């Protein structure tokens, strides 16, 4: 995105926008971003853009949505009905002015890896009418991955990793909820890293890369297991690429980091919030007042515009007017 030295929005152009979104569509888009945040990266620094600039974020190119940590089957006080809030999130996605090309689900689809929980999640997400690409969370692997693989393992390698291309962007799905060793952070494992090396070897350095996996690939808070032991090896393999976007879940809040050409973003859950790193004795579900719950839950729209180095991300809470 081009540099913005101040946050004043540019005057709205009248009539049809360059990408065919008319004024009504633009207003819908702005409303969707509502209480959400549009992030872009400029000169290596994340910046939030004024709402009027939201138009720039939807100027054609590839648009997809990240949904995460739906935890179907959770029934404690923090949110006894994660199926209801997941449905709201999917309805919200359906109301986007630009239909996303597909959805990425960054894991913890279910709370307890039960087949009926995978079924329910699949039913709910069907109404988004979009292809969905999944990676498992540790809550989806309590039975050793059997139910996850039965539902979402087709076409994947090893413990569920894979890659695909869309409009020139290369997407890599990694699994980091299988290799937990006593007293240490989770790992990607040597098999998966070897596969990744091979997978990206033939790509030109100008290919934008999006990596999505459940547990964060940077050490946010190792005391709570918020990090991946061998992520450095994977990121080394991606060093030569001009644009790398890492999308994670697991921590149920948005945190971001920029390191060279790599931007890291964790996501909100659609089920319940968790405390900020170190703000509580443990990372368990955080109960908030019922009328505030939906301001902590949400989904993310991501847009890639050809020629731009970085993807534009819009995080939208369920509480934002739709």
């Amino acid at each position, binding site marked *: 995105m081009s540099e913005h030295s101040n946050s004043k929005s540019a005057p709205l152009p009248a009539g049809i926008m360059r990408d065919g979104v008319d004024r009504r569509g633009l207003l819908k888009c702005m409303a969707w971003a509502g209480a959400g945040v549009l992030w872009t990266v400029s000169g290596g620094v994340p910046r939030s853009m004024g709402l009027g600039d939201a138009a720039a974020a939807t100027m054609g190119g590839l648009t997809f949505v990240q949904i995460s940590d739906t935890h179907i089957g959770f029934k404690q006080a923090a949110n006894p009905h994660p199926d209801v809030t997941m449905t709201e999130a999917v309805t919200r996605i359906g109301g986007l002015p630009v239909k996303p090309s597909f959805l990425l689900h960054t894991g913890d689809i279910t709370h*307890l890896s039960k087949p009926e929980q995978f079924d329910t999640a699949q039913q709910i997400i069907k109404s988004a009418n979009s292809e969905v690409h999944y990676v498992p969370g540790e809550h989806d692997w*309590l*039975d050793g991955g059997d139910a996850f693989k039965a539902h979402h393992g087709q076409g994947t390698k090893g413990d569920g990793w894979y890659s695909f291309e869309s409009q020139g962007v290369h997407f890599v799905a990694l699994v980091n*909820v299988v290799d*937990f*060793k006593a*007293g240490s952070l989770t790992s990607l494992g040597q098999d998966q890293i070897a596969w990744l090396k091979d997978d990206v070897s033939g790509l030109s350095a100008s290919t934008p890369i999006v990596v999505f996996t459940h547990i964060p690939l940077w050490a946010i808070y190792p005391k709570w*297991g918020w990090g991946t032991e061998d992520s450095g090896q994977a990121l080394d393999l991606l060093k030569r690429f001009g644009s790398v976007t890492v999308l994670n879940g697991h921590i149920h809040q948005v945190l971001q980091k920029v390191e060279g050409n790599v931007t890291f973003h964790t996501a909100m859950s659609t089920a319940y919030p968790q405390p900020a790193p170190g703000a509580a004795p443990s990372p*368990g579900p955080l109960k908030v007042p019922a009328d505030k719950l939906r301001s902590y839950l949400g989904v993310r729209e991501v847009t890639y515009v050809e020629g731009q180095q970085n993807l534009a991300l819009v995080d939208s809470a369920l509480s934002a007017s739709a």
Partner: protein
Amino acid sequence: MARLYMLLARRYPSGFRRTVRLVVIGSYGALALLLAFGVGSHWTRNSALAAETRDIKIDNYSFSPGDITVPVGTTVTWTNQDETPHTVVAQDGAHSFKSGGLDTDDKFSYTFDKAGTYVYICSVHPYMIGKIVVK
């Protein structure tokens, strides 16, 4: 019986009383031995039925108590009191015990028949570590 006693007491005054004392003491002794071995074995069977049990709670992403020593034959029961599922997985090569996902209020029990030191973790939060020494 009383009449027989009176008769014998008159016939054998001093020796008789001593004999009665010996018989009484002897029979108590025999009863004690019987209890120790015969009936006693019934008692030891009872105490085997009331074998040691220990409880460990999973709370705030930790095992509590996290380090215990128990006799062989103890049954340990873990109860998950967190709102997040946890697991209990032995870290020996064979994974002697492995609970599967434990939801809030779920329990898992294992009886330790063999002496040894058992380190275990929660497989999805592997910084949660516990130890059981079985002697």
